[in-house]
């Protein structure tokens, strides 16, 4: 009997040992843009020097909710942009839903604003009680599907968040049933999102997330094309770094910036980097970029330069700036202040949670929370950017 059991144990553990001793194939960051942007950029009229510099601003949300927060955007196959944000009476309220709207690039108008995810409906679809809905993030994958990840909370505060996603293969006209990601050993709690996911060359997804229970630290999920969590690694540890964004520069190298929640008077963004496609990350250090405990967003230009939208000061969110670096983040120059208001004893301005993206016509778009009441949209073209770089 014991001998039979011994063979049984050997039989079940040998495949397991083989499976776990085989390293996962080496990954490489994908620098290919999705088909929409690639085809558009190749003959983008904006690249011509005769194009006038253009900088426009408007609201993306119509103000149907008392508060609106945490906007993100994704390119559509017709060239337009689709935005997602959450809105309701206040952050964490039971009436908070995720809204969506489409930007018609030709006329520069936001249209078709509607509720995409409502708490009760999502609760029934997921088969669990939901107390509140939070940050969405979106991406377009190698098969031109749009993914929308969003956090939900069943009990407790944001530290008890879990991540869910829905997928659309028709540019957001219809969506799949929601799926809940398994990301944490503690009752699947405390994984939150803000940074935009990115693609590896094999089509799998890199997803910067963060943990907020007891400690606050950045993490990187590796998801399969089907949305299964294949791996999870820490970008930092401790209690003060969150909301990582990942900016790949080539197939092996990437920079990561993270919000600083230390509360220090001279707090700056955390940064870490990899030169082996994320197998290892450098020890996180403080960058030179001021950060008042606020989220940032960025993208890498085709020239290799970095654009970052951040609150360029050590405290308060009454400033939102566009920063540029042409030496991989070693030094930064201020290109433009998107917002700058002086707080008064009666009014505190808050410009936060930026999302920077590039549309199919090569123009740049920044969505951000405007005083927590509206989602503001700033749009500028490459000529305007060139002129700002030359004059700064």
């Amino acid at each position, binding site marked *: 009997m014991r001998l039979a059991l011994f063979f049984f144990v050997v039989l079940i553990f040998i495949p397991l040992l083989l499976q776990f001793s085989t390293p996962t194939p080496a990954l490489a960051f994908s620098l290919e843009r999705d088909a929409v942007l690639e085809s558009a950029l190749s003959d983008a009229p904006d690249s011509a020097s005769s194009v006038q510099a253009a900088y426009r601003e408007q609201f993306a949300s119509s103000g149907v909710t008392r508060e609106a927060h945490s906007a993100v955007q994704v390119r559509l196959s017709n060239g337009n942009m689709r935005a997602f944000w959450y809105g309701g009476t206040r952050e964490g309220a039971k009436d908070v839903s995720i809204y969506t709207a489409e930007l018609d690039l030709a006329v520069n108008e936001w249209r078709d604003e509607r509720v995409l995810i409502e708490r009760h409906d999502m609760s029934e679809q997921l088969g669990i009680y939901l107390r509140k809905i939070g940050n969405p993030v979106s991406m377009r994958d190698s098969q031109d599907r749009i993914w929308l990840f969003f956090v939900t909370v069943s009990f407790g505060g944001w530290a008890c968040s879990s991540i869910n996603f829905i997928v659309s293969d028709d540019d957001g006209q219809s969506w799949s049933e929601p799926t809940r990601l*398994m990301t944490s050993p503690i009752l699947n709690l405390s994984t939150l999102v803000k940074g935009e996911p990115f693609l590896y060359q094999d089509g799998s997804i890199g997803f910067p997330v963060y943990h907020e229970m007891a400690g606050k630290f950045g993490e990187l999920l590796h998801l399969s094309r089907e949305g299964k969590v294949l791996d999870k690694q820490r970008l930092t540890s401790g209690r003060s770094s969150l909301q990582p964004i990942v900016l790949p520069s080539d197939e092996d190298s990437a920079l990561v910036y993270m919000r600083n929640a230390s509360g220090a008077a001279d707090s700056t963004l955390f940064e870490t980097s990899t030169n082996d496609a994320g197998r290892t990350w450098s020890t996180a250090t403080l960058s030179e970029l001021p950060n008042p405990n606020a989220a940032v967003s960025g993208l890498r230009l085709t020239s290799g330069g970095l654009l970052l939208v951040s609150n360029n000061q050590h405290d308060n969110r009454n400033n939102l700036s566009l920063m540029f670096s042409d030496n991989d983040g070693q030094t930064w120059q201020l290109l433009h202040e998107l917002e700058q208001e002086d707080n008064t004893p009666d009014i505190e301005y808050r410009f936060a949670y930026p999302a920077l993206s590039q549309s199919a016509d090569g123009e740049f778009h920044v969505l951000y929370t405007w005083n927590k009441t509206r989602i503001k949209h700033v749009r500028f073209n490459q000529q305007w950017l060139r002129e700002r770089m030359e004059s700064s």
Partner: protein
Amino acid sequence: MDLWTDIGLFLATVLWVAMLVKLTRRWFQNSVLTGLVVLAFIAAMVPFNGLVIGSYVFSVTSYLSISTLLLLVAFIVLSCAGARCEQLLGYWHCRRQWRPTVMFFAISGLLLYPLAGGLTMFDPYRLGFAGSPGSILLPLYLMGWAIVCLLRGWYLLLLLIASAVLCFYLKILPSLNLWDYVLDPLVVIYSLLMLLKALFCKVFKFQYLNKQVF
């Protein structure tokens, strides 16, 4: 709702029924208790405010591990069967089987959960993903326990570990992390409480009540 959600709801429903059995079994005979278990399963499927009761439990617990599932099912079945399964009951109440079992879950939980809060860059949960750096350590750790179980005759623990590994192969849960099949916070907290109880009884010379495991 997809198949994974149904599995999660089932796990949560088993927990809900086990809790009811635990709370009520002292007042009812085995046959009544069996009826109560059936009623509890049916009640768990009754919609309330758009969700079934199992959904509310599932909202809190997420996916229970295979180990917890087996322990809960055994507890429910043996509570209902009573003296009709005397031999199994004797085995179930055997301190020799329970001590290593709670030791395993307590030690494994202490290895896994404290570091999950981000104290260091080392994340033991990552070892549960096949192919991640150092992930061979987790199957080696489990196999080590399995061999000791075999040599010492700790068959309850051996059954739990083997079942978790087999279910990991079959991908019964939506997770691809081996830890999620082996343990969860509920079985770890239970094990830690049992160890504290045993320690308390030893220190204060109380008789250790090994007949009431759950």
